[in-house]
């Protein structure tokens, strides 16, 4: 179908249309090869990592893989503590980054005039350029020691309070789930912001004008015209940010504290799946090594699921928009 429309467009240039099929076919083959290459590499990675991890799955079994104890010295390799850490740090990052990101996106599209928006966009995009190892080093050398003081004052303030005490109990140092979550929030803010901004920018001017014409204030216009239109796209942006936060390796490895524990204390040191792979791979062997490979496989599956959900939500909202 697409080829027909393209040839329709090419009709006026009659001299060119004779040579066109060859170049078109060449391009088609090249594009197809590029697309397939990515797919093949992905499948090969999945197969070989699963193969490398097979001894972990076979020695630990399902209950062993999803047990809480990860202790190489005792030959116990349960992944639950890392799955927990991955989800909890990503959740902290999302909770912190999303309101800020959506706020910035609304500021840029609805509040600030375009000539002021441009430099702000530029600065936010610069955040995305900072390498993750730099985030990690800044996190562990500057941010963690600074925030440790805040943690301990919060910790001593909430000791004994039922829920808050369990969440923000006394910390041991600045390296913790919460620090990792904050660093991840910094890292995903630019992605979520720029995707949200693009989605919001697609809201038809006629709908905004219509809302204003009905006497809506700016907030009412955003609630009534912008939000329903861009809701799905923003959720998609958030889920892409979530995928990024779950897969972040070296920054998390440096600031998370490296302790395979499941605890409700957010200021306690923990560990996440990518972080433990990066930290422990160098000296691992046998089932230990297979277990780290297996964590990679599990993480791969988790991110694929997140991405599929993200695509689904974005597509559904696009369909709804077209229908509306």
């Amino acid at each position, binding site marked *: 179908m697409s080829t027909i429309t393209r040839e329709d467009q090419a009709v006026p*240039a009659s001299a*060119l249309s004779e040579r066109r099929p060859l*170049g078109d076919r060449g391009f088609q083959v*090249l594009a197809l090869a590029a697309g397939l290459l990515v797919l093949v590499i992905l499948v090969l990675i999945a197969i070989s990592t699963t193969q490398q991890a097979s001894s972990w799955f076979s020695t630990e079994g399902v209950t062993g893989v999803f047990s809480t*104890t*990860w*202790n*190489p*010295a*005792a030959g116990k390799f349960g992944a639950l503590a890392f799955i927990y850490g991955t989800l909890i740090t990503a959740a902290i990052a999302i909770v912190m980054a999303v309101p800020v990101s959506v706020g910035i996106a609304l500021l840029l599209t609805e509040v600030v005039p375009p000539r002021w928006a441009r430099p702000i966009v530029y600065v936010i995009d610069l955040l995305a350029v900072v390498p993750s190892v730099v985030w990690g080093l800044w996190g*562990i050398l500057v941010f963690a*020691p600074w925030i440790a003081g805040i943690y301990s004052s919060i910790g001593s303030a909430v000791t004994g309070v039922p829920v808050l005490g369990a969440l923000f109990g006394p910390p*041991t*140092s600045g*390296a913790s789930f919460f620090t990792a979550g904050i660093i991840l929030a910094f890292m995903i803010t630019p992605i979520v912001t720029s995707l949200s901004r693009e989605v919001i920018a697609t809201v038809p001017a006629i709908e905004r004008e219509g809302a204003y014409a009905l006497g809506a204030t700016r907030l009412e216009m955003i609630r009534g015209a912008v939000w329903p239109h861009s809701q799905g796209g923003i959720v998609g942006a958030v889920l892409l940010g979530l995928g990024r936060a779950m897969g972040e390796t070296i920054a998390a*490895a*440096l600031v998370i*504290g*490296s*302790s*395979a*524990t499941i*605890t409700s204390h957010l200021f*306690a*040191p923990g560990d996440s799946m990518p972080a433990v792979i*990066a*930290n*422990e*791979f*160098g*000296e*691992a*062997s*046998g*089932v*230990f*090594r297979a277990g780290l490979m297996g964590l990679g496989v599990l993480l791969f599956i988790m991110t694929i699921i997140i991405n599929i959900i993200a695509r689904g939500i974005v597509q559904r909202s696009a369909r709804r928009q077209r229908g509306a």
Partner: protein
Amino acid sequence: MKGRRSRQVTTAGVALVATALFLAACSSSGSSSSSSPGSSSSHLSGTLNGSGSTFQLTFQQQAISGFKSVQPGMTVNYGGGGSGKGRTDLASGVTNYAGSDSPIPAAEQANFKGKTVLYFPDVIGPITVSYNLPSVKNLKLSAPVIANIFQGKITTWNNSAIAADNPGVSLPKTPIVVARRSDSSGTTQNFSEFLVKGAPGVWTLGTSSTINWPATSRGGNGNGGVASIVKSTVGAIGYVDYADANASGLTFATIKNQAGDYVAPSVSSATAAASKATVAPNLTFSAIWAPGASSYPITYQSWVLVYQAQPNTNDTKMLQAYTGYLIGAGQKLLPQLGYAPLPSNIQQMAQAQLSKIGSAAASSS
């Protein structure tokens, strides 16, 4: 229209050429180790690649630059990455030699497909137990006390068990902060092995490159990371290799050895420990918890691993030359780097083994 199309073709062409060049570069670097097989033994040329133990990294780097004056035609590369990575790289044929802090574990033997691997011990070094207590200058610690500190059972410095090791010293009631590695490490492996041997029944966390430390401990990345925690935290204690502890200006404890004497970590006490270790015929040994009154009990060792069977004579000669340098003239570099040279008995055994490289006859494959 025409101009745009030709520009696209050119771009595609450039991309293809770049890809081809990249692939060519990759394949040539892979095969360069076997280049120029006809050169004489006095002037070797070619490339040796190694990877593994980060404990050896500084020594390898110094030795590689020193070796340049012996064999200017040879290029030797050593990437760190950890002992496990070094052994995997050697087994999969990516490298010519590996640096490893431990003999090949049983679980990995199958990777080497029955080929004989030769062990050349090349570095030994003490692991310090460094601490940060401005008022205490000469702390003495025994293995059971260290075990209980690192298990989180002794939590303040004025604990009676620490006081028993240090009669007459006034210890502050500062809380103890345990600093340990956040990454897996041969240093952790050897430190925990010392606790298994020196504090049997007391130390319950076992020995491995990663230990399930109590959640109250603080993790630092690499020896440098642990050193910086100890340096910046009053009341902290951590295990740091001697070279990094010295570089960071840390204060370290004297440790009670098997003979019951308190020995400070030093180049000579590490060599003394290795000289008392029992060496197996394949040159594997453990200097941890070695007997002898002057032996430092947390001394660890690292090997260069080389296949006995080599694909060609040039590789054989290059490996003999470089390994020979590491265990011969290169040993002089060690003390200034904070490592200890091999004791003469082990050095002689290693040198006698050099001629085995490339002798495929005795190989079991």
